């Protein structure tokens, strides 16, 4: 079975962000980039499915990123993925979510797949749009927000998180699954894994290789445009009181809620 995991590099949550006023894009070179934390759950799940299914199953990592993105790919390979595919092209920069989904879908068609796994969202944009849009482009079952996945004989069953519980959903492969953090505990790359990752294949694909139309990518190919960014100031520090007497502490909170018309 061929399992492909789509991953993304994101700026570290703790990093200070600055924006290029001309392009209105994040200065990605000025912050430390990391593997999107949600993607680690997808990689872990892919490795577990591969181990369970056995045979000649493989796990391929797919990302669109500048060359600097090779670091996150190496991390994924260090966890145990077999090989990776990177699409890097200046024309991609500035692509919005729908343009990104278009490109990933073409890359997936080129690479081939039985099962596509991804994180539910990225920590930088929190869109949760790309996985479902990719499934729609490919015309395959779209099983998002999975907290449990089981694969057997060409069919798949997931438990999909809902606002009030979960749905048990079944479909035939090929399918796309996005996973939530409840699904597993991602492994750390071992030293042996990290050393081995250096020898694994990282294939570079061009837009021409996958038949992508540059006019549908980047700023010009995106149907949305950011006009401005405003940095949100830190929340002002409010009043902090010591409550040695719990009743008094509770009363102070109550008075505050009444004053703010919250009760």
């Amino acid at each position, binding site marked *: 079975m061929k399992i492909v995991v789509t991953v993304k590099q994101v*700026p570290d*949550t703790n990093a200070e*962000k600055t*924006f290029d006023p001309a392009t209105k894009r994040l200065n990605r070179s000025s912050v430390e980039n990391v593997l999107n934390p949600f993607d680690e759950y997808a990689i872990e799940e892919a490795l577990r499915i591969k181990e369970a299914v056995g045979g000649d199953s493989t796990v391929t990592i797919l990302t669109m990123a500048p060359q600097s993105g090779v670091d996150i790919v190496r991390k994924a390979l260090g966890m145990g993925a077999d090989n990776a595919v990177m699409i890097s092209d200046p024309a991609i920069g500035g692509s*919005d*979510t*729908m343009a990104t989904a278009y490109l990933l879908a073409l890359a997936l068609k080129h690479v081939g797949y039985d099962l596509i796994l991804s994180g539910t969202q990225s920590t930088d*944009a*929190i*869109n*949760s*749009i790309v996985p*479902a*849009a990719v499934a*729609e482009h490919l015309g*395959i*079952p*779209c*099983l998002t*927000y999975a*907290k449990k996945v089981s694969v057997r004989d060409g069919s798949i069953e997931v438990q999909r*998180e*809902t606002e*009030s*519980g*979960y*749905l*048990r*959903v079944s*479909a035939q492969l090929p399918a796309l699954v996005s996973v939530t*953090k*409840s699904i597993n505990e991602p492994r750390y790359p071992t030293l042996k894994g990290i050393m081995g990752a250096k020898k694994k294949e990282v294939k570079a694909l061009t837009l021409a290789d996958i038949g992508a139309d540059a006019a549908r990518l980047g700023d010009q190919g995106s*149907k*949305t*445009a*950011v*006009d401005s*960014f405003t*940095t*949100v100031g*830190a929340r002002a*520090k*409010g*009043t*902090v*009181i*010591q*409550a040695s007497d719990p*009743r008094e*502490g*509770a*009363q*102070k*909170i*109550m008075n*505050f*809620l*009444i004053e*703010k018309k919250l*009760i």
Partner: protein
Amino acid sequence: MKTVISLVENDNGRLRRTGLEMATKAADLAKQLGVASGAVVLGKGAEQAAEQLKKTPVDTIYAGADVPLDGFLGDPAADALEALLKQTGPALLLVPATNLGKDLAARLGVRLNAGVITEASDVSAKDGAVVVQSPKFGGSVLSSIQFKSADYQIVVCRANSFAARDEAGKGNVVTLAADGSKQYPARIEEAVAQEAGKLTVDEAGIVVSGGRGLGGPEHFDIIEALADALGGAVGASRAAVDAGWIPHAHQVGQTGKTVTPQLYIACGISGAIQHKVGMRSAGIIVAINKDGNAPIFEFCDLGVVGDLFQIGPELTKLVKERKGAA
């Protein structure tokens, strides 16, 4: 653009809390843009939900009670919305930022070659164009985003972003026909409602969250009692979820939900950046923690350094007394 339509979710005839605010927003935007407005509600109970939507100022309510939302995941709703939007012509579609809403935005975006903007905290009309405000990078930046040329525009809206208004519109109800016998590839085998009828953490106007300071799952009853008294939902920090004290659906923060309630009460939560990014946009933040050096005291509106196990129940009692007296 010819119309502004809001997707409203319903649970067997009960509108999700965001429904009325989304429908009101669709009506207001349509008025500013000089186009028609509508709200669409699908699945079992759609007729009852449509009655409740008559309180809002929308022109037309589209009700698709026969769309088999409970039999198949996503596909029937995507088909019904695609058919409706192709019939209405160029439109702005507002969808709620729920799991199903986000999936539908993505899939309709592909089918209709639409522009899609997510995590909207506000949507307005300026010189005939739609302008969306959306927090990015954990709420540290607010971006203002517009659509370029696109016949169809889709905006995924965060809960608690708009105000609902009681003002009856035209109240036309149009029934959306659906082929109930059609089969789709992703089949729902079973729906497990662990917390049916309870307010979810992302739609609630008040969220009371518990963290590591609770010390164990048994103490979440303090959080639940306070949330119930206030009419809010129960949230949790990553530490509490990872310890298995409460399901992930309650988690607020980087690897959980991003919430924007009017009031957020953090109990026994230190306030690390990973939690902060999920709740920093709340209207008012109150923190109770025994550790006076906890980072949460740097960005809350009112911080109380003290014993949560005593202050929590006391506060619940005071809230109940006040509500009982009112």
